[in-house]
């Protein structure tokens, strides 16, 4: 068994891959969502804001349950995925990506909104009155001016994506060598009395998270200093 080998690094590589992909997707989609929330007024904005906050407060099992309903093999989305890619989505490492996204996206969007709001509207107005479309204003003014803040948030998002346990185990399961991520592997190691493996993995997760948060905290505290 793979788990009996204390030097099995698979969970680490899987977690890094899952977290990288999840972070990439969350930063792209989340920046877009945060832009809409910070720059637009529309009906149902507060409802959407609440829906985005919800995953932060709901138990992971509840979220996992919803996800199973949404992307399970019997659901329309799950079936569509199966038709497109020839395999079910649940209990694969791709499902772990979705779990990680659900875990980290709310945090990113919540924090990215004030970062985008902090860009002085006069820069955006100046660009618009010079003739720039909303899109190029976003791309060439808003985004570069919030780059540092969003970059730090991306680091935060990566660290958080690395750490999901509850939703992952519900929708991706605990299949050693296939869907067993770091946090699941730690649980597994503790359960099976493999104290040495648990200690190593715990230290790795803590170290990576700290290494990411330390510089990010510095930037987030000093603000996006564009003087």
């Amino acid at each position, binding site marked *: 068994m793979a788990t009996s080998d204390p030097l099995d690094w698979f969970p680490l590589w899987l977690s890094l891959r899952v977290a990288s992909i999840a972070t990439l997707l969350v930063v792209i989609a989340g920046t877009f969502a945060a832009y809409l929330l910070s720059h637009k007024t529309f009906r149902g904005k507060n409802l959407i804001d609440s829906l985005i906050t919800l995953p932060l407060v709901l138990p992971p099992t509840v979220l996992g349950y919803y996800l199973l309903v949404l992307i399970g093999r019997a659901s329309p989305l799950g079936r569509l995925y199966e038709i497109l890619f020839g395999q079910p989505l649940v209990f694969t490492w791709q499902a772990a990506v979705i779990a990680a996204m659900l875990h980290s996206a709310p945090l990113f969007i919540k924090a990215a909104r004030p970062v985008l709001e902090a860009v002085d509207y006069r820069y955006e107005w100046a660009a*618009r009155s*010079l*003739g*720039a479309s909303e899109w190029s204003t976003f791309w060439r003014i808003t985004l570069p001016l919030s780059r540092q803040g969003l970059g730090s948030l991306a680091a935060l998002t990566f660290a958080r994506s690395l750490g999901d346990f509850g939703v992952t185990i519900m929708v991706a399961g605990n299949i050693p060598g296939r869907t067993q991520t770091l946090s699941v592997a730690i649980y597994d190691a503790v359960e099976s009395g493999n104290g040495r493996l648990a200690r190593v993995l715990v230290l790795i997760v803590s170290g990576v998270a700290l290494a990411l948060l330390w510089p990010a905290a510095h930037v987030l505290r000093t603000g996006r200093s564009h003087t």
Partner: protein
Amino acid sequence: MSIEARLIKRFPGDRESEPFELNVRFQAGPGITVLLGPSGAGKTLTLNCLAGFARPDDGRILVNNELYFDAGTNVYLPPQRRRCGYIFQDHALFPHMTIRENLRFAAAVAPLDKAGRLNRHRRINELLETFELSDLAARKPAQLSGGQKQRAALARVLAGEPRVLLLDEPTRGLEARLRRAFYEVIRKTRERLNAPLLLVTHDLEECFELADTVFLMARGHFLQSGPREAVLARPATTDLARSLGVYNVIEAEISALDPARNTSHLRVLNQDIDGPYLPGHLIGDRGFLCVRQAEMKVLSPYASGVQNQLTLRVLGSSPSSHGVRLTFEHDVVAIISEREYDKLRGADTLRIEVPRSAVYFIGNG
């Protein structure tokens, strides 16, 4: 090149703010039009409506016969299609770009015709040259002084060949010397730009310096408008005269009028003042004599052969930027030089000469 606008925008007000209504109608051609008024008058809101950052509830905006906004037919051009060069209070130069990149951005996003696009590069160099920015082109805005930023903001706006130039309190926070320099730059801009230039300020001196046309504004409305001289020399109401800050406003009654000899006679503080004929007024009309502080002469009570004078008790004196500011009873203020003041020092009452040509009467009601 002209603007024609009627703007109505209402704010219902809440716990923190009074209800406010902007309701203005104006036309502006090439040259400098100044919106002068205290803060909260709606000056910046007017600019924002023109530029497309605030949507009026009613009215229409026509620039060079192109409809920018019309409440009736629901036309609303977005800001990027209005080509309004907007100079913001703190310049709003993009901090992550160099000055040249700022200008390049403006030229790249402006909806220029083909010739304009081909000449882009040359135009940018030309503008950098004109505004004395060539040596600073590679710097970021943070490395520029206030005056340099000001010029860069103007150059950037002109790179897009705007149809209208909007300036929101452009000299706020600049010291006197830089202000003067900026007035020169604005005048230069007026020469090269055949477009209306709308400037918002609460600074009377700035208005005197730059305006071709003045709109006096308060609480969302225009109080008076016209060529600069007409507005500043002939304020329509005593409130306006007082708000301009350069007038003495003294109660008066017309005691004689003679259109044939172009004379009038005013009873002011139980003393007599002669003036030119006052058309549109009748003998016995009560109102106010308005005299610019700078046009009054202060004389010793022993001076002889002086016509047209008021004898007033001195209440105090204080230094001012142009000499000494003397205050008299009835809120009369005069500004005289240090040397004159030395001669008059210590007197309880002084005589004030009101030149006949300076007499301006505003009737009650």
